[in-house]
């Protein structure tokens, strides 16, 4: 397991793909857990429509997860040591593909969700 989370060395594509799937699945589980908790805790007394409260809670979930993920990235880089990373090597990026993917996907996902929420809140929408 440690190999999956704290390994920056690219071995083969199959291994990278497995790691990526595990990363996605674990992130999904973690996001779900955080979202479940936050959906019960946040905006209890809000007069907003429930759907908006839930979507806002989801954005907060992504934010919390992002913080946790950054913590993980910090520990990860600390563990392997930045001096050991060869940023000029393409293999490094292939080895770090799952982490990078989650990082980028998280940010993109956040902004997509934020945009959808904005559309719902839009004054000219009945939904």
């Amino acid at each position, binding site marked *: 397991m440690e190999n999956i989370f704290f390994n920056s060395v690219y071995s083969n594509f199959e291994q990278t793909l497995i790691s990526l799937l595990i990363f996605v699945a674990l992130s999904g589980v973690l996001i779900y857990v955080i979202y479940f908790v936050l959906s019960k805790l946040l905006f209890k007394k809000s007069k907003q429509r429930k759907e908006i409260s839930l979507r806002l809670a989801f954005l907060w979930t992504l934010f919390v997860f992002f913080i946790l993920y950054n913590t993980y990235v910090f520990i990860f880089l600390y563990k392997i040591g930045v001096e050991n990373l060869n940023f000029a090597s393409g293999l490094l990026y292939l080895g770090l593909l799952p982490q990078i993917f989650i990082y980028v996907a998280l940010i993109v996902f956040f902004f997509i969700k934020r945009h959808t929420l904005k559309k719902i809140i839009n*004054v000219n929408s009945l939904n």
Partner: protein
Amino acid sequence: MATPTLIIGIGTSGLYTLEHVQRFYYETYKKNKPEHVEYLYIETNKDNQVGVTPLPNEIKRVYVSLGEMEKMVANLKKDGCGDWLPPSNQLVNAGLGAGGIRSCGRLALWGCNSEGDNFKNVVDAINNAYGRIASHTVKGAEKSKPTIFITGSFTGGTGSGIFIDMGYLIRHLIKDIKELFGLFLLPSKPSSIRGFEVLYANSYGALIDLEHFNQVESVYKEKWPNGVSTDFSVPPYELVQFISQDYYDGSPAMSNLGALYKMAGLYLFLNIAGVKEKRMERFVDAKSAGHIDKYGTFGLSAIQFPKDQIQEYVASKLSIDLINRWTDSAQYFSNNEKKQINKAVIFQQINKLFDDFLIDAFLSLNSIGGKDLIIEIEREAIKINSKNIKGHPVDYISKMFTSSSDSNFYSLVKNNIQSAIDSLIDDIHDLVVNKLNETENLYFTKYILESITQSIDKTLEYWKQIGLSSKSDIWENILRDLCSNTQKNTYKIVLEQDAVLKDRLLTAFETMKMHMLIKGLVDISRNISKDDIPLKSSVSNKELPKTKTIDSFITLLSQVSGKLDTQENIFTFDKRIKNIEQDVNDETLPILRIYPSGSFVNETENSKRIYIQKTNNNARTKDEVIKATTLWDYLVKSSKARFFDEIYRDCLNAYRSNIDLKDCVPDFDVSKFIIDNPEAGIRIARRALSPFISINKILSPSAYLPKFIAGGDNGSIKQVINVFKSNNFNDFGESTDRMLELNDMKNIFIFYDEKGGFNLLTDLGYVEQMKNVYENPPSSETKTVERWKNERNAYNY
């Protein structure tokens, strides 16, 4: 015990005289008349109405119609009465009232047309008036007999036409009559009679008739329209007093007719205030000595501190200040501070408030017949999520809110939509009422209403933008979208599906309310700004305020204050102020006005300053006038009655009584003024020695005829007499016979001298000119001598 007295005014002059009697009485006693007195006024001119007085008017009007003259004449002739009637073609189209034709005036009393039975109306009015005064005399004492005064002018058609009939009618109706007096106004000595021929000829004709019925051998034999046949061989009046604008020597005593009415009013007022008893003390002696017979006249003058006029003037000024506050278009008062009216700020505040009103209205639709629809919707959400329904959830939800069902949420809310409209009407009404009460500014309130309509329009515009409409088919389209949306993203994953569905159903519910309320909001907005019948809340019965109503209040109030022009017969504060100014500055009136501060202007300014100091308030407020009601309700109530009269009276009465209570105009000792200024006192007292009529006969002084000084107490009258004596003016003598104490007349000294022993047909200074014009129609007239005389005569004998 006070003598029951009935004063009857005939024609327009009679009305003006009565108005002065009423006003003099009010000025002295703060009420329009005592209980033992009644005022009655008989008029042929439909347009003449009794003017506004500070208290409810006490002059009862009897309108005798002159419509359908031919029919009236025919009816009278058919009934065998009215031998005196000239041919009907000479009576028609007489003009306003009796049109200066004496027989027309008489016909007005006798006639009966589709507007009513004039004779019966007059008889009923006299009987009713007598009934009222008679009921005030039996207070543990023997019933005293009534005295009747009839007043009017001989120049027009009404007074000169019916004064003989009226005398005998009174004698017939009031059997136990004590005295019947006449007070009639004559035209003044003419510089040129041209253009005024009718006035002088009518007066001469009336004098001839009066002289005839005063003769011992004359009999008044008529068959009245009520079937009563009369056979009176007594004169119509015990005594008829005549006055004109002249002094004895023909010099002008009064500059205008208004002053003549005023002096006639003062004379009658003095009679009901206690002078009559004094006059009558030695009247029999005077009569038996031949000093007076059927005709009399008098001289009258006074020195007055016009306390009442000052009070009324200041009250009028304060009333104008108050109305100006209510109708100020630029500024308003908040917490006693003057602020600018800012429409933008008002709109901002009202826009926020209107959102709250809408929330209230929406909330009122949540509960119907004790059933909480929100709880119902929650239950439905759980039912739908637990699949405890028939059919597809989207169809099920659609059925809940569709307009095509009569047993769903749509029909429930639709049947209850009036409660939301009622809620809005109530909220808007309360906002307007409270803000008007707070600011006392109608423009501020009007801008609030305009802001409300703007907020409604903005809301409707927004709803339109998001696709809402009051039309059912559009609602069905919206509902379809809303229903299909309920099944997307159900949030079942975080176990929030029930809350989310409930929320979505509530959104549909609220949207449905918006769709249904569109028509109501359009109606409210339109009703506020248009001239329709105001919408009413069906529960509280409150009316939706309208901008037009506020506009009309502003216009009417501006008219009452005098800022805007009004019809001539409508009383305004501005007109009243001018009247008072004109009255107190009238030099030709034999009344000298005196002031402790030297002038009327100083006196009124001082009084107003004292009032403001004592109220500790620079701004006038409704609380000084209106008690126990809001300004809005007061204005609405007044607008349903006679707005001008209500506002005028209420403001004037309230301020007058406040001025009185705060003693802003202290009494002023008139006797002290006379003692300090004997020359002025003697000058005014001398004016009373000349009667108000120009006579070519030397009227020798009589010890029996009334001649006295009247004042608040005998002590001060004695002091004045002593001062006169020490200044070699002894015309009023010094016996108690020449003094009359009238306790309530604190601020006035009256000098009175009655004259008699003349016959106007021979002694009037200009009787020959009157006779000439009576017998010969003026060259400008195309009428024959016969027709001219017919119009100048009303009695056959």
